[in-house]
């Protein structure tokens, strides 16, 4: 089953009067449980593509289906709900909430929706994920008391806490050293295998490209290979 499906998707940015076409007719499908990387040179449209798949931006033209739903007709409220329910984000710049500690940052997405499990189960689950990313002894730390790799792991835990079907990560390792990067990717791979979570990330990093199931190659807003798995 395809969790992501794009048909002739275009995205233009307007810079004043100039139209900048960032994506020029992208069609692709990504299946459930895929571990995919979007690769391409700087400016090729990787971030733009991930934003569209992640429902945090809308395409200029074209059709976008996420877990079978056509996004075009969804209103802001429904789109927000879809993001909350189905998608997890790992930002390149981590984007942790500075006033919350590690545990609270991971807990945060759960507080946005209705509770689906008991308080106790929820706490166990959060603890489990934090342990899983190796931060069991850092729960009470604020983001500014953590290293870059630790923050990235908090971001991963936060993205996974709602058990999303799809996790998106825009250059998750760009700010990390290569050893940490490898551990992070391995962690995601493990989760991918255990939970059947679909992972889509963009990267320049050749090492990551080697570790994924398949690679979508972008160039200048056009897919040059890997549009289907």
């Amino acid at each position, binding site marked *: 089953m395809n969790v992501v499906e794009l048909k002739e998707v275009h995205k233009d940015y307007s810079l004043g009067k100039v139209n900048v076409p960032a994506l020029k007719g992208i069609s692709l499908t990504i299946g459930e449980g895929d571990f995919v990387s979007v690769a391409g040179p700087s400016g090729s449209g990787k971030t733009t593509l991930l934003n569209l798949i992640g429902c945090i*931006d809308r395409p200029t033209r074209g059709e976008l289906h996420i877990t079978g739903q056509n996004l075009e007709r969804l209103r*802001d*409220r429904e789109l*927000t*709900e879809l993001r909350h329910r189905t998608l997890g*984000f790992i*930002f390149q710049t981590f984007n942790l909430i500075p006033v919350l500690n590690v545990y609270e940052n991971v807990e945060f997405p759960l507080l*946005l929706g209705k509770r689906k499990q008991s308080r106790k189960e929820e706490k166990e689950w959060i603890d489990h994920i934090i342990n899983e990313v190796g931060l069991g002894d850092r729960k009470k730390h604020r983001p500014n008391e953590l290293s870059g790799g630790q923050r990235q792991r908090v971001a991963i835990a*936060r993205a996974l806490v709602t058990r999303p079907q799809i996790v998106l990560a825009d250059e998750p390792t760009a700010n990390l050293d290569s050893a940490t990067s490898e551990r992070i990717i391995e962690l995601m791979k493990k989760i991918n295998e255990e939970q059947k979570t679909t992972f889509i990330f963009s990267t320049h990093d050749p090492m990551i490209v080697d570790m994924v199931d398949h690679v979508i190659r972008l160039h200048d807003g056009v897919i040059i290979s890997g549009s289907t798995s």
Partner: protein
Amino acid sequence: MNSVLKIALRNVGAHKIKTGIVGGLIFLGVFLIVVGNSFLSSTTESLRRAYTQSVSAEIAVIKNIDFDYSLFGTWNEMGNLHVPKLPDYDRTLEFLQAQEEVREITTVSQGFLVVNAGENDSDFWLNGLAIDPKSYGRVFNVEESLILHEGRMLLPDEEGIVLSKYAADYLRDYKGITVHPGDSLLLNGYSANGFRIREVPIRGIFEYRYVKGDMYPMLPRTCLMDQQNLNLLCGLNPPVQKEETSALAEELLFAPSEEDMFGEVSFDAGVSSDPVETDLSSLLGDMSLRHSLSQTENSDWQWFLVSLKEGDKKSVKAFRENLNDYFAEAFQTFTPDYVKDAPRFADQFLASDQEEIAYLRTYLTEEEKSQLSNVQSGAQDGAEQVSRIINRIMEIENLQKGSSLESYPFDSMTRNLMDEKADEATTRRLNRLMIEELFPYTLEKGPDYTVSEWWHAAAPMSMTTMGIQAVMNAALLILFIVAVIIIMNTLIISVMERTGEIGTMRAMGAQKGFVFLMFLAETLVISLIFGLSGMIAGSLIITLIGSAGIPAAEGTMLQMIAGGNTLYPALSGWAVGAGFLFMILTAVLSILYPVGFALQIQPVEAMREE
């Protein structure tokens, strides 16, 4: 919900500069409101106590008039207008006495007098307050509220004046006239009837104990005197009959001689030659009445001053409102006969000629009909319109027999008609129109009495305090607006700084409502913490000052608005309420725009975070 509050609270601590600016302004605003308003309402309260005790009592009842009035004269057109005499003295007095809230009632009148200080000297004005010593002493505890420097209070049925200490000192210091009880004072009065002069014996020299205020000259110049002398001097009684001038030659003998302490009396001082003739005759007319005190009707008073058993603000207000309602209801009994008789006329006419109504109505245009019905339903004030309509009908009826009807209010016009300036049939017809179409309006015109509280009687002083209060509130309003603008700016900057954070939250599935609540909670938390601190700080300061008291120096503004020598400010519930309102309003108004701004932040902004 908990998470919103938690994040809001943490952000309050995390963004210290923002919290400082927003909180500081709210603290300052609430503090100033609590302190300022408490201070001023204490001055009003202190003033109220002083005046109700010594000068005005709690409630004043006068004839309904359309100019501003006080016991210190008509303070917008000084000396030009008098409060008319009470229209239905006996019945009203009886009615007031029957009210269980009423403690005592006294009657007073007011007029301006000039001390005759000899030739070529400038005038020295006095505010003459005619009192009825018996009831005056019952309403105002004279021993307590007045300081008698010399002599004694006026006795019942005695003529004379109790001079203010200020007036006595002034006469001594600036006019070279030393006065003591037992001496007589030559007083002038002006009125529509001309210029009057009378010699009035001085009975005492007094000062108000609690009521101060050299800043407003009419208070220290207020003197207490008998009713007859004031009425005659100021022409407050009905015009003197000309026949009585026969006694004038005799009365002239009573004119002060050169041995009198004020020296020679010059009747034409300051009066041009032409008016002197007429003035002199009225003056002499007056002199003839000098010993016939019964000439003035007992009921020729201007004011009922009513002291109540319960003198607190709320009871007084309730009593005033009840009384106003009563007078409004009882208006019929206070209206002229032709209006009183109207219902009877209506019965008669309705019984006899129905078709006449229809006939009159045919003269009305559609517009006039709707105007009349508006006037009747009270939606529109219509005396002018109605009189225009009547005029027009009269034109049609060809009725303008010599009476100038232009711009007549309809009631005097009808009165003219009743005086047989028009033929009887027309009078009946118009009266019918009045009854049918206008009578409801006439009834709704309101009470013929004005019932007011102390501050109206003490208007110049109470108005000053209220004016200061208004100025201060205007200043606070400006502070409020400035605070809202500054806080709004600070919040917008804060929202912009946190664009990435908000975008991130939105990307993770936070709805707009969450963002809204987060900012609202943040601002409300700051407002509450700082606003309540401001309230507590303000309350503490007022309580501290209140227990010590603020001394007011002689002749200062503070003394005047405080109505005494020491002001004890007390925390006012109203001030605290206003502070609370300021706090909430500031928070809510200044958050609206920044929050609107925050709601526009798209989830994609999360990607721009550096």
